[in-house]
């Protein structure tokens, strides 16, 4: 659930453009990978559409936990839609979120990078752990925690590299403050891991083909 909750103007123009450029490059790679498939996977397109709607809906809802936090379901997007389609999904969600006033336009690039990391790590862990952890619920949960942990680390890295305009704090102080935010965020990651585990376990029971698992 990592998301940079800073307003436009927090990063200098150089870093706004830099993170936008990096996000656009990754999205272009995702589009290239999707277009290089000989036959478009209809199930994946449909799942990506549903993931976009569900994640957008839940992303804007602030939960009364730890003073107010939100879920974003990015590892679930990775597990269901895959890393390529998932990268496009998180870009769309970030654009729509900014359009309704949740997050600055200038931070869409940085937030998309953070979310792409969550999607890719969530997907990769889920696939890599397939042989060692056959249980879908716990595998999806562990993948979610791993994805969100990496997303939080990338979020910290982006803010520390960019610096925040108009503040007098040292890098060490900012790093300490952001580490605490990441730690609080991870508490919510547990809830997200539980929800993701339940959803994946249910899909695995009724439609294992959607997970590429095959019936056991």
């Amino acid at each position, binding site marked *: 659930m990592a998301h940079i909750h800073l307003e436009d103007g927090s990063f200098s123009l150089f870093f706004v453009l830099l993170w936008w450029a990096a996000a656009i490059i990754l999205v272009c790679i995702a589009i290239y990978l999707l277009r290089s498939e000989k036959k478009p996977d209809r199930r994946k397109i449909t799942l990506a559409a549903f993931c976009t709607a569900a994640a957008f809906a839940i992303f*804007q809802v602030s939960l009364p936990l730890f003073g107010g936090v939100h879920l974003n379901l990015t590892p679930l997007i990775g597990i269901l839609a895959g890393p390529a389609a998932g990268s496009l999904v998180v870009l769309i969600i970030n654009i729509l979120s900014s359009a309704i006033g949740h997050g600055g336009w200038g931070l869409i690039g940085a937030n998309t990078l953070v979310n792409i990391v969550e999607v890719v790590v969530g997907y990769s862990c889920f696939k890599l752990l397939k042989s060692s952890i056959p249980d879908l619920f716990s595998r999806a*949960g562990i993948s979610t925690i791993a994805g969100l942990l990496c997303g939080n680390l990338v979020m910290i890295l982006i803010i520390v590299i960019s610096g925040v305009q108009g503040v007098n704090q040292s890098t060490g102080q900012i790093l300490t403050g952001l580490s605490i935010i990441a730690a609080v965020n991870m508490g919510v990651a547990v809830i997200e891991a539980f929800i993701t585990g339940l959803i994946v376990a249910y899909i695995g029971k009724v439609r294992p083909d959607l997970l590429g698992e095959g019936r056991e």
Partner: protein
Amino acid sequence: MNKPGEKRGPLIFIGLMLLVIVVSLAAYGATGNMGIEERFTHAVGLQGERGENEGGGWFGLALEGSPLLYAFMLGILLVACYAVYRNFKV
């Protein structure tokens, strides 16, 4: 008979959850009750302002951003999902 590694996953997951909960509660205790926006501005040293949705909402749940635009965008996404579902027949 249990498959090899069948219990490993739940055990690792429970262990991870407990570890993460302990760390996050300690972090939450160190900072106190703040909204996410407030927590961010405080962490990076910006002048603090209250989180935009604190104190309101429905059973403690609050929407970030404009509720009207949220409903509009969500409506468009749901129509798109229905169209994709009908078209691709998955």
